[in-house]
């Protein structure tokens, strides 16, 4: 069965095409197209965002607005905090970076991916649009589970708003089994001066997990601080739905998450020097 295909010229056209609720949104196509090729996704209708004018990064009063069709390459070129460094490490090389979008990755919501935890760490706001209107959902409430988000089938993610970070320091560490592997555990750290570290762990649970971590008083190698991080991460993970895939079981993800969180914190704090 060949799906209906449309490539609307603006957001109104996109939301109209999605109104029936049976459409599959295609951003860069790096997830949906292989899924269709292999029969994992069977769509009645495809709504292609490539002509809808949703690409681009703009600085607004309330933060940086990232259009849903902004590619990883665009993010690197615009120097968007945290997301630009994440984008340089996206597996798949230039072909994927030139097509893949952070917005698409957020909507795909693979727990074993870079973007979800980063958006939560950045306190991003997800702007969703439908024929009935627009709404804004905080990233922390957008990810509901593995491959599940708050986006309704008749909605499209139009923009992601990233609040101003002030003079916060950022760190990001991704752990993979090998170069071709999906991320197993990621950790993004936001260090706002004078406050505890905000570390968001990805991949270790079905959704990103927020962990408040004290700043290390004797360096990130201090065993006492490491114990504190382990306890904080494990307490946060205990409250979350575990995640497993073919590459790594939940127990392994949980086991290494504190080390990845600590490295991410160290990465953020080292930018100080």
């Amino acid at each position, binding site marked *: *069965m060949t799906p209906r295909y449309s490539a609307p010229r603006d957001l109104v056209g996109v939301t109209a095409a999605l109104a029936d609720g049976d459409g599959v949104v295609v951003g860069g196509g790096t997830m949906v197209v292989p899924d269709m090729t*292999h*029969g994992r996704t069977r769509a009645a209708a495809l709504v292609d965002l490539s002509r809808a004018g949703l690409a681009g990064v703009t600085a607004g009063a309330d933060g940086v607005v990232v259009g849903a069709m902004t590619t990883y390459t665009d993010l690197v070129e615009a120097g968007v905090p945290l997301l630009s460094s994440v984008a340089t490490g996206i597996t798949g090389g230039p072909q994927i970076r030139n097509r893949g979008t952070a917005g698409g990755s957020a909507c795909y919501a693979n727990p074993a991916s870079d973007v979800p935890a980063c958006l939560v760490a950045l306190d991003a706001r997800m702007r969703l649009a439908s024929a009935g209107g627009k709404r804004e959902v905080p990233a922390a409430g957008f990810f509901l589970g593995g491959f599940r988000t708050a986006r309704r089938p008749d909605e499209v993610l139009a923009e992601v708003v990233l609040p101003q970070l002030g003079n916060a320091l950022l760190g990001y560490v991704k*752990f993979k*089994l*090998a*170069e*071709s*592997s*999906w991320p*197993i555990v990621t950790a993004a750290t936001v260090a706002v001066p004078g406050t505890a570290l905000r570390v968001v762990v990805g991949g270790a649970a079905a959704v990103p997990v927020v962990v408040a971590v004290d700043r290390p008083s004797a360096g990130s*190698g201090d065993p006492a601080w490491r114990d504190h991080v382990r306890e904080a991460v494990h307490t946060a993970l205990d409250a979350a739905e575990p995640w497993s*895939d*073919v*590459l*790594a*079981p939940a127990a*392994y993800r949980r*086991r*290494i998450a504190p*080390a*990845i969180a600590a490295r991410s914190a160290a990465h953020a704090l080292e930018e100080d020097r």
Partner: protein
Amino acid sequence: MAAPTQPDSAIGGSARKRDGAALLTGRAVFVDDHQPTGMLHAQVVRSTVAHGRILSVDTAAAEAAPGVRLVLTGRRAAESAGPVPYFIDPAARGGNRTDIRCLQVDEVVYVGQPVAAVVAETRRQALDAAALVAVEYEVLPHVLDAEEAMLPDAPRLYPEWPGNVVMHNRYGTGDTDAALAAADVVVSGELRIGRSTTSPIEPRGYLASWNAAEGKLTVHASCQNPHQMRWMLATSLGLDEGDIRIVTAKVGGSFGLKMQGHPEETLVALLSILTGAPVKWIEDRRETLMAGARQQVHRFTVGAMADGRIVALVDDIVADVGALTAQAGWAMPNMSATTLPSGYLVPDCRIGLDIVVTNKPPVNAARGFGKDAAHFVMERAVDIVAHELGLDPAEVRRRNFIPADRFPHRTSTGLNIDSGDFVGLLDKVLDEVGYAGIRARQGGLRHRGRYLGVGLGFELTPESSDSPGTFVSGFDTTTVRMSVTGMVTVLTGVTSPGGGNDTGIAQIVATELGVPMEWVELVQGDTDRCPNGFGNFSGRSMVVGGGSATLAARDVRDKLALLGSRMLDVPVDRVEVADGVVRVVDDHSRALAVPDVARALLTRAFAVADGIEPVLESTRAYKPGNIDHVPDEFGRIQPYPTYSSSLHAAVVDVDVETGKVVLLDYVMAHDCGTMINPALVEGQARGAVAMGLGSALSEQLVFGEDGTLLSDRFKTYLLPRAGDVPELRMVHQVTPSPFTMHGNKGAGEAGVGGAQAAVANAVEDALAALGVRVRGVPLTPPAVLALIDEAAAR
């Protein structure tokens, strides 16, 4: 190595691959590039259960789907095609067998087994229609683990067998019990080698074209063994061999997977016969990844003296070969057992082997052919002995290697190693990797929380095998033909999977004939054009393809020299053929162009060439020495003419918080005797090492409890990428074989087991302070972390 003045085209020169430009510019023609008029596309409907009885196959919906020309069930296929003949029949070796069908009729024994096929006008239509074929199964209990499959109450794959064991064999000679009792130390261990696969860039594929008017079948195939495939199709389809032509011209990697014997070979030919149209089937990556390459469990005991000398080896092997296949893969574990004592003087060996079937897709032939497992196990055993005795692993190897002056040497398991210098390889690799320096740095790094390890892996690679009564042949045949213009066509029975033996054979022919390499055209992989041959496997192509090409080229050269000497009016022993001319040895100004001599022979046969048989063509077979099929007093035969050897050193850094192993350096000291083309040897060796590194660290075929393959794409089956592999450094040693034409030994397989062993030993070395004992491969980060936790809990 080539002297600086020699051209790259000489034997020993690194001539560039002849098809390199065509490959790089996309002009090479592979099976999927053939698009004959009226071609249809096939799709295979595969079992969704690991073990079951087929109750019904409903084809109505598929037959009514757009573009569908044929839906074939197993029952209907069995009316037109017999069983697929075995490459190596287990019954011929005293084992259990079963009929292998192109489509299953009554029972299925693994998820993915072919049960029906759909032919449609487009690949998409065939794919969609295949999803509409409804197969109803009575699900039967299944078993995925070989040791469970050996239990008395385990589900049986083949009810007519007494159990799930294809065959049980014993290998080795001597009194191991007495030797172990007399040993100063006895160490034991269990090692598990996970299921990995070969992953050629081009998957398997076949294009069959049945010409009903002439009753002739042409098959373009991505296959290593065109002549064997012709015989197989003649047998399974009841056709005359002479009515079948197999063409395998360009193949995008094989690694053993594309040895003949797969059900789809007969199937696609049958689909073409039944539809009367060309039918193409190209495997999907998910299907390629079903094929296993190896999976074994070893329980070994080794006895050694206080000075490190190993005196006895006992090993019990359980080899999981998945479901039985007509392909050669099921037979690989025999070589795991036979190769086990490797290049060491181990006088007493007792090895037991059970080859066991399970409800998984078959293990197919794969680079290493079971020998890789022997290297992994033996090299682990040597390291454990070293650890037990407090000796350096390099020193224990040195004390156990067969000395260079003791060849030919017959091992306890019966292999007659032709030649080698294993201590020489050890010295080279230790020097190149900077072994002493690494040992000196390790302690200091450990204080700073870094776990650096170095590991060694020796590999003895028996090559160019011959198995009596099978199509595993230790000889091959080549025709060298010179035309009236002096151009040379070489038609050979060996085929190239992409490794470049066509270039190597052209170098040999050009050198032997004394003509420029550009004059030489190679024809391979066409049963209508090439002499009867056996394709490529077992590192045979340059040994027997190169050997037979040499003999044939010398015949043609002799003819040119004879006529040339007559035309130059000098005795024949005063002429040579070189650089495209026949010339007087001590007076190069007196020379005739080879094309002029060729034309004289073929156009003046009753004049200047009178009395010389006017044919510039020779077909010769070459049989290397050192193969002996007369069983000795212990019943051992000697199927390999040459034994390449290599010593591998891996340097790793292990992240003890995550279990991740990072490769810092890798050196392979390699000895395959004379190298016809060192660049091509290195290309093959690097590929084999990368395959070994992948199976040592990241590659793993994972099955769900229901027998479904879960790692069915390259995001879940993790091949090494450039960033995972350091520069693979090569050092060469040349110990010519006394038993082959040019002193060359097999090249292309060596690397898999040596890489696995070197990495495993390096990881254990890195984590020695934590008491970690490696128990298998792959050493994925979760597996390494589990070993660290296990050691901490002890």
